[in-house]
């Protein structure tokens, strides 16, 4: 236990001392909050017909998350691939040859930081947007709103964690970025819109995650599961990525 604490401290130092990785978190915050507020301002002035239904003021405030999540994905990719692309992995495993301990400590340290930034972002984008929404605004005490805001922070954290697992399998930052980014930016969206694939696409991690953010019946997602099921689907994706990453780390030469 004392050993794990020491390695955890070391990994915390690692993740907080590289500027480029910290910038991705700053970017995640600003993208999410600014786009969320901008969308809220835009939609507020439209009639229900124009926006195709009643407004879910909570869900609208998360409009920037589809962009902000990409920065979170970048964070997840960088903290892991940074070890491999720089050769730091050799120093890291030289210092902590127990690979399971090493991986666990890195995941905990990076996830803690992502969770902190994710929650702050989710709270900020919610309250910022409600300020703009005026009469249409929701209150944090409204039914399901607090849960949605917490899930917003959780969603961003889980996206980072999922990316860490995937990157641990791929190692190369180029490979990880070129698979994850287009997937979440384009592919998942297309699959979700096309009629034939929609039924399958709803089980993708980001589509499931977005469902967690909806407040009850205001936003109709037409999904086979509710917010609780959505969380479980996301957790399953994260677990699969991390197990894959662990097996690769354990088996391959560094």
């Amino acid at each position: 236990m004392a050993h794990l604490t020491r390695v955890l401290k070391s990994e915390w130092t690692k993740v907080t001392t590289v500027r480029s990785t910290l910038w991705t978190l700053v970017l995640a915050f600003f993208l999410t909050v600014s786009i969320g507020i901008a969308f809220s301002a835009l939609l507020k002035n439209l009639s229900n017909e124009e926006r195709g239904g009643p407004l879910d003021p909570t869900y609208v405030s998360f409009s920037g998350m589809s962009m902000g999540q990409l920065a979170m994905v970048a964070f997840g990719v960088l903290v892991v691939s940074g070890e491999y692309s720089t050769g730091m992995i050799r120093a890291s495993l030289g210092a902590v040859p127990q690979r399971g301990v090493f991986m666990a400590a890195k995941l905990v340290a990076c996830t803690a930081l992502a969770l902190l930034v994710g929650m702050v972002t989710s709270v900020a984008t919610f309250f910022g947007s409600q300020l703009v929404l005026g009469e249409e605004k929701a209150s944090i005490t409204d039914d399901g709103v607090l849960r949605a805001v917490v899930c917003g922070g959780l969603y961003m954290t889980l996206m980072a964690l999922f990316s860490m697992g995937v990157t641990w399998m791929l190692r190369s930052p180029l490979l990880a970025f070129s698979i994850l980014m287009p997937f979440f930016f384009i592919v998942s969206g297309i699959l979700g819109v096309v009629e034939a694939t929609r039924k399958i696409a709803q089980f993708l991690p980001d589509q499931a995650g977005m469902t967690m953010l909806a407040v009850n019946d205001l936003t109709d997602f037409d999904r086979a599961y509710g917010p609780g099921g959505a969380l479980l689907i996301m957790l399953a994706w994260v677990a699969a990525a991390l197990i894959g990453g662990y097996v690769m780390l354990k088996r391959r030469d560094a």
Partner: protein
Amino acid sequence: MIELEGLTKRYGTKTAVDRLSFGVRPGVVTGFLGPNGAGKSTTMRMMLGLDRPTAGDVRIDGKHYDQLKDPLNHIGALLEAKSIHGGRTARNHLLCLAQSNGIPTRRVDEVLDLVGLGSVAKKRPSGFSLGMGQRLGIAAALLGDPRILMFDEPVNGLDPEGIHWIRNLMKHLASEGRTVFVSSHLMSEMALTAEHLVVIGRGRLLADTTMESFIEENSRTYVRLRAPEPERLRDVLVADGLAPTEGAEGAIEVEGAQAVRIGELAAEHRLVLHELSPQQASLEEAFMRLTAQTVEYHAHTALPGPGEPAAAPPPGQQQGWGPQQQKEGF
């Protein structure tokens, strides 16, 4: 103490390290010598638990590397391949390594000063020169004040001052009773630092001996002669049962003979000699001869094979400090 037993690494059908068994003892610098691609780095990575052996075993103080708790306190390593994140300052790089092994923060500043990087502790290594990067790697190796140190090609790409510094550091560490294991593909470099020598070629152990006996066994001694009448001299030598060969620039070389005997022989036959000098082939030659069969990537200009006389260097490419170089203003 490092012990290897039948250590083997295969990549598919290619054997990089082939049943290596030897021990590295404390108190001396042990040189780990082999041509490029001989398997030195792979062996060292297996010692550190980075690569998994296909077969065999390597133990550090009787334990596998991943059984060591806080390994930096047992063994420090400088690998040939860079192992530093360029975006993390030198001090933070060492700090995160220190924290993982419970090494006090004060030691970080100590080793930074020790390797002469105190003034750039807050700078990021992406802007470091090769030599500074190497020093930072050495600082990391020294962090836990370990009893075993391992350096993979530590002088590669360093300036003379840096090379000098590393040589002295290694000798100093050994004199403190530590185990120092250094790899190199340059015999001349090893001759200056190592007392013990482990030579490998194509992953196989070729020699495990002291530097002294390696030199004795492997260096070719011969006598070099120059004379105004080389034909007659040659006849006289052959008549005496010696085997003169053609040396560089018209010189005659005689292997396995005493200079004294040849001098007397020449005097008996009233032959004038312009040169009569006992020679010792360089260690580099001895190393090349030992590994000639095992060199992985041969250049197209053939190396002198075993038994053949060393080829004369073409004029203008002489090794050493000849009059020609001086004229050209070196």
